[in-house]
């Protein structure tokens, strides 16, 4: 997995590629929580378009990011979910709790 960061105005975009599993979900969690809690970024956006696989520990990292952003009144957004990632979020009945968009343009427009 690779994770890189882009900053635009009051938004941070994480571009993630590869598989998110137990081997690297702690890295995702750490990056998300740092951005939300320490940097107090108002809008954190996850580009999931190149994530091929996400396991329960990866989903848990996303839920932690969402909870932290809610606690601080900021926004946590996902876009570009692959069929597999969408399936996992649906199975865990978590898809509806996230703010999800099809692409970056839509994610940044609101």
């Amino acid at each position, binding site marked *: 997995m690779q994770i890189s960061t882009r900053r635009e105005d009051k938004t941070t975009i994480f571009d993630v590629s590869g598989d998110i599993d*137990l*081997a690297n979900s702690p890295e995702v969690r750490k990056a998300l929580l740092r951005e939300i809690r320490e940097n107090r970024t108002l809008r954190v956006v996850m580009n999931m378009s190149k994530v091929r*696989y996400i*396991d329960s*520990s990866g989903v848990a990292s996303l839920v932690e990011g969402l909870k932290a952003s809610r606690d601080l009144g900021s926004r946590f957004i996902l876009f570009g979910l692959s069929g597999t990632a969408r*399936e*996992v979020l649906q199975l*865990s009945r*978590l898809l509806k709790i996230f703010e999800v968009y099809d692409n970056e343009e839509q994610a940044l427009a609101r």
Partner: protein
Amino acid sequence: MSHMKTFLPLRALDTRGQNFELSRGLLLKLAMRSDPSLLCVVRGAMERLTETLGFSAAECRSVTRAVDEALTNIMRHSYGGCVDRPIAMCFRQVQRRSKRGLDEGLEVLLCDRGPAIDPAKLRGRKLEEIRPGGLGLHFIRQAMDMVEFTRVGRTNRLRLVKYLQPAKLDLNS
């Protein structure tokens, strides 16, 4: 030398208790260390194996996910994050009698040498709760037809079985 120490228990683990012979439907045996960086390797093997056996694309994904989550649970909970403990996997073709005749299926046996686990803790959590963690067991139960946990001697055994869907196979033929 450290490799010897790591992998010696694996030989004892996969031959202990049951004798998986080719005549009993053995498809594949894998032995690995409890290192999360190897999970992607097992997922790759599972994707190909389930595909080869004729599972639908959705079933290939769900069975692969179930095995991945089961291994994750062993690494996290049974071995507490230690990356050099042994895990043995055995994959067999199995059959069951049903109203339709004989159903073919895949049995996955995962063995580890962690401490005994309280089966009551293997229930997972309610999905209504929005909180991180506890989803792995839900994914496993959702994907598989049979999930059985047993403790045999010093070995934890998780047996997962998934049967092919005859109706779906007929549609494709």
